[in-house]
């Protein structure tokens, strides 16, 4: 912002004032931006990295220490074949060596071979399916945020009014109808009976509508409830009364002031919600025949393809940790008390 200083002050005074403003800006940076950046690295180092290590260790041990060979299938294999297979996949080594090797591979982006789809690596199978799932998940998240926040704020404006009852009834319905019930119902109604929307595939934009609604609705409902609670609490605070007393329009009070505090519970939900969306996408992908991660991991789990499932677990773990870290940083930025508390802890 350029201040019209020259109109009111002498040159010297102007310089003094602009210097003061620069100081202020700098301290603003030091107070507001720098701690958030520090907090981000702190989170990364003390939360994200240990979590990922625990995840790899836990899941790898689970797979390797489980009874039975990963090759045990309907056909009986001779001892010699089994031994050769074990050697080919490096499973004849001691488990800690296997773990270190696997971890080394993971760091280089190598998740090992698929056991049930010979010739394909886990990485290839995931790489072809992941973009579709990510797109589905992000669209559903966007839908959930837009619908959920609108309903929640609408409900909080007039508690116990008709808008509140309408929004909260809708949210209750959303919470009680999981995606694998909503999806088939939507497909039946809008796809097969009314024939308005396609129910198969992932090519045209219209293909996205029903899957995104099926996946995102339950989270829209959670968000609406949380947003309503958060907004109600925020709107009862003193500074809101001040804002109203100085004559701000209700729109500005709600969107300009209360929203920042009111959406904090919603943002806290985003971490778990992202995880839920990614796994919830499995059923939606099965229902609408979408070539995403669900079509990789479900057959893999059914056919006990350990490396493939392990790779998916690690991938989703990594995504979740990344997302949780981002959410924490956003929260720390919105609410300075959090970062102070966490840093001193």
């Amino acid at each position: 912002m350029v201040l019209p200083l020259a109109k009111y002050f002498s040159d010297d005074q102007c310089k003094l004032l602009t210097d003061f403003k620069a100081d202020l800006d700098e301290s603003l940076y030091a107070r507001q931006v720098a701690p958030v950046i520090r907090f981000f690295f702190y989170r990364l180092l003390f939360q994200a990295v240990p979590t990922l290590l625990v995840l790899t260790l836990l899941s790898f041990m689970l797979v390797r220490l489980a009874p039975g060979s990963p090759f045990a299938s309907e056909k009986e294999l001779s001892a010699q074949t089994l031994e050769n297979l074990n050697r080919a996949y490096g499973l004849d080594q001691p488990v800690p060596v296997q773990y270190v090797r696997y971890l080394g591979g993971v760091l280089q982006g190598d998740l090992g071979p698929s056991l049930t789809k010979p010739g394909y690596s886990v990485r290839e199978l995931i790489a072809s399916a992941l973009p579709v799932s990510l797109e589905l998940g992000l669209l559903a998240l966007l839908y959930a945020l837009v619908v959920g926040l609108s309903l929640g704020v609408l409900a909080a404006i007039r508690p116990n009014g008709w808008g509140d009852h309408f929004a909260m009834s809708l949210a209750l319905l959303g919470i009680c109808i999981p995606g694998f019930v909503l999806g088939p119902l939507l497909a039946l109604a809008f796809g097969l009976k009314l024939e308005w929307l396609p129910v198969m595939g992932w090519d045209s934009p219209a293909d996205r509508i029903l899957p995104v609604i099926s996946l995102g609705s339950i989270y829209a409902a959670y968000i609406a409830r949380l947003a309503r609670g958060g907004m109600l609490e925020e709107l009862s605070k003193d500074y809101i009364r001040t804002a109203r007393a100085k004559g701000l329009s209700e729109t500005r009070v709600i969107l300009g002031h209360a929203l920042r505090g009111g959406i904090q519970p919603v943002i806290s939900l985003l971490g778990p919600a992202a995880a839920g969306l990614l796994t919830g996408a499995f059923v939606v992908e099965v229902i609408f025949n979408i070539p995403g991660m669900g079509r990789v991991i479900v057959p893999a789990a059914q056919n006990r393809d350990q490396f493939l499932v392990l790779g998916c677990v690690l991938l989703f773990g990594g995504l979740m940790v990344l997302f949780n870290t981002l959410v924490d940083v956003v929260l720390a930025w919105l609410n300075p008390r959090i970062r102070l508390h966490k840093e001193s802890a």
Partner: protein
Amino acid sequence: MKNRNLRSYSLGADAWRRLLRNRAAVSGLVLLILMVLACVAGPWFSAYTFEEMDLFSANEAPSAKHWFGTDELGRDLMTRTLVGGRISFAVALAATLVSLLIGVTYGGVSGYVGGRLDTLMMRIVDVLYALPFTLLVILLITVFERNLMLLFIAIGAVEWLTMARIVRGQVMGLRHQEFIEACQVLGYSQARILFRHLLPNVLGTVIIYVTLTIPSVMLLEAFLSFLGLGVQPPMSSWGSLIEDGRGAMEDFPWLMIFPGLALFVTLLALNFLGDGLRDALDPRRGGES
């Protein structure tokens, strides 16, 4: 001491009275009891069993003979839905108990002992919190033979984290109060103080959270069964019935609608009851809304 007892008693009675005044909560409770009764006792009175096939009456629409219709093998859908409900409720009960056992003990110890142990225990929870648990359950199912018991334990073992955090917070708030000091003066053992005196006082909060855990456990079971990773045929569960019905829903929509409805009604009842309990047991929130 006497005073405190009196007050906590009246608080409990008060909560119960407030719950009974809440029409939505009471209807939720009644609905839930009916649902459980139907699922547990219903199959005994049914003229059919859940695996009895009758290919001459396959895919029949709901009628007086088959209230929910029949599936493509002529099995009675109502019996299958009720038997599936047994699985859902059994999983919900068992997994919630497992999560209760681990979560309350863990949170109680962490909150009561405090200090370094508390920090360590909560760091562990923080780390575990960030793991993709649905996928770890899928991984468990992948590496072990699929069986129901494993499913119960696996789901319960992943649902205890929030419980532990909540109990810890509550215990920390209580442990410096006079009645705990009195126990210490009386020379009770730490375990006795924790399990006999602290944890009963946390019960209200725990109950509220249990009503949140049960639906999420049921959803997880249905989700896994829907993907074919939960109960195995010919056994039925709501998730697997919905998945079976989905394939034929254009011609025989009841195959999907009835199991879906059962799940919906149960979740709705649990939600009503949970909201009611929260308002009844937590006067601060109750006064607000």
